[in-house]
Structures are given as structure tokens and as C-alpha cells.
């Protein structure tokens, strides 16, 4: 608190001109009782304006949705609230008090808790240790001794209250990703924060878990908690949101009550251009691209299915149903215990390995783009040709020119326009996915496996990727799509296999597809 006047004095030069606006902001706030109010926030990162005159409010007992394409400034705005970075100008009010949030500890003191999109749990520690990390309960009479029993009890209570049965004594690495996400949420809920920021909390949750999370959010709302909810899944937003703020290139471009907006309106304001729904015409050919017979592996049993050329087959199910493990095993990146795989009518002999699969014309776009799909630190051009090096250069000697030309060709094919010398870590999720796709087009894959292809990708890029998947099917390539998003499955697939607990439990043709049916058979 001591430092505050100094800081203000240092910037008083330009603050004068903002004072008036600041006051009018206070006036507004008194009308509608916002608990958090951010007025005219500006932020630059090394010369690039990320936020420009953003005014954002959150109200107690309401879910304030924050929407925007990747790079629109959502994360930066939330980082400012939670004390990760400071804004260049602008004022933040909690209640009717101006606050200065300089660190995560400041944010916690003001009752702000943030659930980050990336899990930040300690894998080797137990659930309760994670929940109380940094706020350990101490034994009453002994200094430096933590009270494990009490922490475990309290954690159990919090988790039960949230409606999830997770053993607080379990080590976090033994939990599924979805369960870890819930622990992450419990960490924030436990603190009874007044303002709870959720950054894509449902990205790895299944439909049933999402429903439970929404119950929890409603309960928190009743208790007067203000929730800031960030997500790309528009359907969700309509289910849970009360108000919405849409950011586009660092500016607020829509601020509305959730009841007054339509989906089309949101997508339009988010992307600046209309996103058309892709049309679906099945172009399945009679020949089979892939047939799997009685596959057994780490988390799947007796799985048999087929994909025809030109057909888009979706593999859906709850998170942890073994879908990713199954497709990874087919690609050769995960253990396959038994079973036969037929590629384009020919039986695959020997144990599958990625290099053999690539030679056999399989392309695999993994869910973990950054760890498995791309090689960070290698430029986009090198990433695109990486999987095709053995075929491009049979003498094993590189030619920079040929490499660059090939990379450019396939970058053009997926409509990637950012330049092939950029590093993939600096690209948005959508562009990264395009690079991964270009890589598999480069190897001339005839069977493409997409594992959650639109995870963390904004609506505009998502539509582009859908269109590309459809185009590829139109060219006669077999497509196996792993997806948890019913809307995606409905939109793209010709046929759907539903997995449950490691088994394929249902096959649905396009004619009998509805979202309810998919969800019903997943459960």
C-alpha cells in the first residue's frame, strides 16, 4: 500500500487526462453494482498494442463471459486482473475501491482466483497437497508441521460439495486429465473467492462432467460469486452465461446480455467476418482405407472398425474412454498388444511404428499439438517437411532449395500465410494446426487421423479446418476423427463409433445422428 502514491506520482503526467474518465467509470459502477470494474485498460507488449481502451465489468451472482479469437487479448486482460502482468494505463476497482494488483498475492487478497487453462498441478503430490499448495494448514501446537489429516478432510468436503468423487489422498499423476481439471477448479473454489476466473475449464471435460461443473457454477452464483468465464464453445456460453463481452484485436466489440445475442452475431463479431457452416455431402468410396480387427491395448479392448476411402468416421466417447490410445496404437505411437490392422486392403505385418505408418501413408494429427504435433524451435518449413524427409531425399542429403519449395507448396495448400521461416511457438493454435496438416499432406497421406483437431482453436480457424477436412475426404482420403465435441461430430462425420471404457459400444450412421444420441450412448 505504501508504494501506491509513489507509483501514481510517477505516472501523474498522463493520468490527469484519464482522471475524468475514471470518475465517470465510478459513476457507472454505482448504477449497476459491479464487483470488478476495469476502466480503459491499455497494454502494450514491446510496441504491440494488445489491449486498447478495454472496459470490462463483472457482477456478483452472474457469469460474465469473455469471448474472443486467439490473440484477441483475453488472456492478457485476465493476466492483468490476476496480477501476472500490469497494465500500462487504466484503473481497476473492486467494489467501489480502487485497487492496485501487482502480484498473484495481491489478487488473492482482493478475492480473485484464476483457474488456468494449462494444468499447473504438481504431478507427484496428492490431491489435497495440491489444493492447499501455498496455504498449508498447520498443526496447532507445533511449528513447521503441516496437518495432513485436516487438509485431507477439508479437501474431501470441498470436492464433495462440488459434486465430484475424487479421493483427496490420491497422487495427481494417477488421475485422468478431466479429474485433474477438477482438482484445479477445487483449488480456486476452496478459497471462496469473490471473483473466479475460469479459462476454458471444459476443454478436457466430457458432457456429463460439464453438466456437473455448470451445477457448481450455478451454486457459486447463488452464493454471490462473480464468475468470469472464457471459452470457445459457443453452446456452452448460452447455457451458462449471463452477460458477454467480446474482444476483437484488443478492443471490446460487443457487450451485451447473453439473452440478447445470437450465435451468428457472436461468431461474426469475434472473427470480423461471417463464418459459414460447412455443408456435408458424403463422398465415401467403396474401397476400405483402414480396417482394425480385435485390437487390444493399454486402455482399449476388442476394438473392430473400418474407414472407407473418402469417408469421415468419428470416434467419440468420454475422455478416458481410450479413444486417443486406440488411434495412437494404430499409428504406432502407443502399445498394441494384439489384433490385426489392414491398410488399404493389405495386412500390416510386424509391430506398427510411426515411421512404418508414415511410409504406409497414415498421417496423425495428435491432440497435444505442441508436444507431439510440432517440433518447437524448428521453423515452420522444416516442420512441414520433417515427416517426409526419407521420401524427399532418398540419398539422405538435404537440399535447402527443394526443402523450401516443398514446404511453400504445402503451406499454400492449407492456406497458411505466415511465412515458413517463423517459429511455430509464435503462431496461434489455428495456424499451428495448419502446419501440422501441411506436414501430413506433404507425406501424401491417404488416411488421416485427427485427434481433437480444434482443441483451443478459435471459431474462424475452426471453420477453415472443417472445410479442409471435408475437402480431403472429397479427394478420397480416409479420415478418422477423434472428437469430444458433439457439434463437430454432427457437422463432419459420415459414421460414428462411440467408445466407452475401452470398448466400441455403438456404431451410428449419419442418418441416425443427433447430439442427444451421441451423448446418451457415451454415458
Amino acid at each position, binding site marked *: 500500500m505504501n508504494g501506491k502514491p509513489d507509483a501514481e506520482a510517477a505516472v501523474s503526467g498522463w493520468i490527469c487526462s484519464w482522471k475524468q474518465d475514471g470518475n465517470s467509470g465510478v459513476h457507472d459502477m454505482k448504477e449497476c453494482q459491479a464487483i470488478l470494474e476495469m476502466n480503459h485498460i491499455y497494454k502494450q507488449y*514491446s*510496441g*504491440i*498494442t494488445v489491449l486498447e481502451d478495454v472496459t470490462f465489468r463483472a457482477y456478483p451472482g452472474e457469469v460474465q463471459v469473455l469471448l474472443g479469437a486467439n*490473440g484477441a487479448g483475453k488472456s492478457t486482460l485476465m493476466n492483468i486482473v490476476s496480477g501476472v502482468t500490469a497494465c500500462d494505463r487504466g484503473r481497476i476497482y473492486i467494489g467501489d475501491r480502487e485497487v492496485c494488483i501487482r502480484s498473484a498475492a495481491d489478487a488473492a487478497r482482493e478475492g480473485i482466483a484464476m483457474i488456468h487453462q494449462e494444468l499447473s498441478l504438481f504431478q507427484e503430490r496428492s490431491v489435497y497437497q495440491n489444493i492447499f499448495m501455498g496455504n498449508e494448514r498447520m498443526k496447532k501446537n507445533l511449528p513447521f508441521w503441516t496437518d495432513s489429516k485436516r487438509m485431507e478432510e477439508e479437501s474431501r468436503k470441498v470436492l464433495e460439495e462440488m459434486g465430484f468423487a475424487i479421493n483427496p489422498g490420491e497422487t495427481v499423476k494417477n488421475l485422468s486429465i478431466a479429474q485433474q481439471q477438477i482438482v484445479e477448479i477445487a483449488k480456486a473454489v476452496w478459497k471462496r473467492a469473490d471473483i473466479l476466473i475460469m479459462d476454458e475449464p471444459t476443454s478436457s471435460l466430457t458432457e456429463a462432467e460439464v453438466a456437473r461443473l455448470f451445477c457448481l457454477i450455478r451454486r457459486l452464483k447463488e452464493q454471490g460469486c462473480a464468475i468470469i468465464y472464457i471459452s470457445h464453445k459457443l453452446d456452452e456460453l448460452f447455457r451458462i452465461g449471463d452477460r458477454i463481452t467480446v474482444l476483437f*484485436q484488443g478492443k471490446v466489440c460487443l457487450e451485451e446480455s447473453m439473452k440478447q445475442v445470437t450465435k451468428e452475431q457472436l461468431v461474426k463479431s469475434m472473427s470480423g467476418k461471417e463464418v459459414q457452416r460447412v455443408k456435408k455431402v458424403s463422398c465415401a468410396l467403396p474401397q476400405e482405407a483402414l480396417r482394425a480387427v480385435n485390437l487390444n491395448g493399454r486402455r482399449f479392448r476388442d476394438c473392430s472398425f473400418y474407414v472407407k476411402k473418402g469417408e469421415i468416421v468419428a470416434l467419440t466417447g468420454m475422455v478416458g474412454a481410450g479413444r486417443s490410445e486406440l488411434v495412437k496404437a494404430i*499409428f504406432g*505411437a502407443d502399445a498394441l498388444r494384439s489384433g490385426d490392422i489392414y491398410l488399404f486392403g493389405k495386412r500390416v505385418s510386424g509391430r506398427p*511404428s*510411426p*515411421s512404418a*505408418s*508414415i*511410409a504406409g501413408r497414415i498421417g*496423425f494429427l*495428435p491432440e497435444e499439438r505442441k*508436444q*507431439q*504435433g*510440432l*517440433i*518447437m*524451435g*524448428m521453423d515452420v518449413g*522444416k516442420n512441414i517437411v*520433417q*515427416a517426409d*524427409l*526419407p521420401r524427399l*531425399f532418398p540419398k*539422405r*542429403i*538435404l537440399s535447402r532449395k527443394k526443402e523450401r519449395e516443398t514446404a511453400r507448396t504445402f503451406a499454400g495448400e492449407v492456406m497458411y500465410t505466415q511465412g515458413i521461416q517463423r517459429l511455430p511457438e509464435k503462431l496461434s493454435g489455428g495456424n499451428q494446426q495448419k502446419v501440422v496438416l501441411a*506436414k501430413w499432406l506433404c507425406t501424401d497421406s491417404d488416411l488421416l487421423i485427427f485427434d481433437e483437431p480444434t482443441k483451443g482453436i478459435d471459431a474462424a480457424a475452426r471453420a477453415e479446418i472443417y472445410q479442409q477436412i471435408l475437402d480431403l475426404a472429397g479427394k478420397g482420403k480416409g479420415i478418422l476423427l477423434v472428437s469430444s465435441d458433439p457439434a463437430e461430430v454432427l457437422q463432419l462425420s459420415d459414421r460414428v463409433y462411440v467408445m466407452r471404457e475401452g470398448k466400441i459400444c455403438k456404431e451410428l450412421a449419419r442418418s441416425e445422428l443427433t447430439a442427444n444420441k451421441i451423448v446418451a450412448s457415451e454415458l
Partner: protein
Amino acid sequence: MSCRYSFERTEKRVMLVNVNKKTVISAYLPQLLLLAAVILFLGREAEGFLTLSNLRNVLVMQVPFLFLLSMGMTISVVVKGLDLSIGANMALSSCVAGLVIKSQGMAAGIAAGILAGCLLGAVNGLLIAKVKLPAFIATYGMDWIGKGLCYVLMMGTTAYGFPKALRELSSGETAGISNLLLAAGIIYGIYSFILYHTVPGRNIYAIGLNLEGARFSGVMADRTMICAYIMNGFLAAVTGLLYIGQLDAVDPTIAEGWNIKLIAAVLIGGASMSGGKADLNHTLLGVLILSFLTNGINLLGISSLWQQLVIGLVIICSIFMDKFSRLILEYREKQNWIKREGSL
């Protein structure tokens, strides 16, 4: 405010050196600056540093050995490891070569030495790729094993008196250039070609940057890892052979304590331990800086007690400069991007 000012000034200086947008120079800038500083300082302060005989001594007698081994260390750093067995490998392969030369003749001896070096490298690779030991532990263990084998093989004795041809190999001259320098140059050329112009080289960098991602792209990661360590072992063996030619003797204490010097050279060259970010050219600069520095400290008559302290400071300084120049490069890249595209 003052911090910001100096940042802008440094940036301007970089721009001056960096005519025609050649990022090539700026990539080596911190190491080149450091090297220039070391040479300038020693040239002024240390008597006899800038004499032909001294420079010749450093460049011909010290740099080739250090550089050959440092190339091996660089490769292990590229694949996100650290090879602590290079010294022992060099000792072992020279012991094997020495013994076989004594009993079977020169050709067989050289072949045996190189085979021993590659074999030890392969074992390192197998332990890391297949048994999945951390490189640090695997190579540290092999360091002890290699040294132990030397003592067992030599049975506590020293072998000396090798054929003249072997001595010629490392102390002779071809077309006026020292054979040592020539050997280092040729191997540098070959290794540069393998690392930067062939598919296996690309794969070595790929597994260093992201092992899992490389595997998903069809790189046979285990094989590539073992290859990298064999390349490393080969270098140790070649250096061992040249070294016994120079010394005309073999004993198990060869290359004692060299590993730490190699790591120093690679670090001064600006390598990152996080994998995939090290290269031979940078290592060469690192080796030059380190060699001049050690030589200069001796010439200055500074007690060797100070040597380690100074080298430590130079390592930290070099890493700091490297980080700083990377920040500036990134900033400039962003600015150029904005100029071209209008926004990010």
C-alpha cells in the same frame, strides 16, 4: 528509465554491425565480441601473447584437441544430454590403440582404437535411448567404467615408444599446415555436413528439440540417439589417437579432468542445455575464447589458482550476453514483422 535507455543504445549498436539484415553475424555476435575483447585485452596486457609463436602454440597445439572433443560434447548437448565420459573414452581408446599398435602393428591399432571409442559411444547411446537413463547418469557411470578399463588394460603401467608414422600423424605437416589442424578442419567439415546437410543430422536436432514430436514425425528416435553418441565416441577415439602421437606415450590418466573444460567451451559458445540449441560454429568460438583465456592467464603470470574463477566468470558473462542478444533479436524480429504486416 535508465535501464530502458541503455537497452535502446545497445540495440542501435547491434544494428550498426548488422548491415544488410544479415542475421548470420548477429547470431555469433556475443561470442565474437567476447573473443575480440579477450584478444584485445590480452594483446595489451599480456606480454608475448600476440607473438607468432604463442598464437601458433595455442592454435596448433591446444585448440585442435579441445575442439575435436568439444564437437562431441556439442552433439550430446544437441540431443539434450551431457557427455561426461568423453575424457574416459579418449583415454580408453588411446590405451586400446596403444596396446594393439605395440602387438599387432599400426593399422590394426588405429582400427581398434576407433572401434573402442565408437563402442563406448554406442553403449552410452543404448543406455540413454533404450534403458532410458538420464544422459548425465549414464555417461557419468561410463566415465568410471572407461577409466577403470584403462587401468585394468594397462595394469598400472605406461606404454611408450610408438612407430614414427604415428608420431608423424599428429606432429607432422602436410602442405605447410600442421596435421593436427588439418585433421580438426577435415573432421569439422565432415561433421558440419552431416549435421546441417543430411537427414540424420536434421533428425539429431529434431530429437534434441522435441523427442516425442520427432517420434510422431517418423524419426527413429532411438537409432538417431545411438548414432549421435557413436559420432561422439568416434571423435574421442580420433582425438585419443592424435594425442598419443603427440605424447608418444599412453597412460590411463590421459584427459583427466577434461570433461569440465569441454562443457565450459560449449557453454561459452552459447549453447542451451535444453536441447537442439548448440552448433559447431558456436562451439569453435567457445573453444577459441577458452584457449586464449587460459593461455593469457598463464602469460600474465596470474596464479593458476585464479584460472578457474576467471573461466567461471567468462561462462556466466557469455551466457548473459547470449540471452541479451537473443532478446534484442526477438524484439527486432517483432518490429520488422509489424513493419511488414501492420500488426501481429
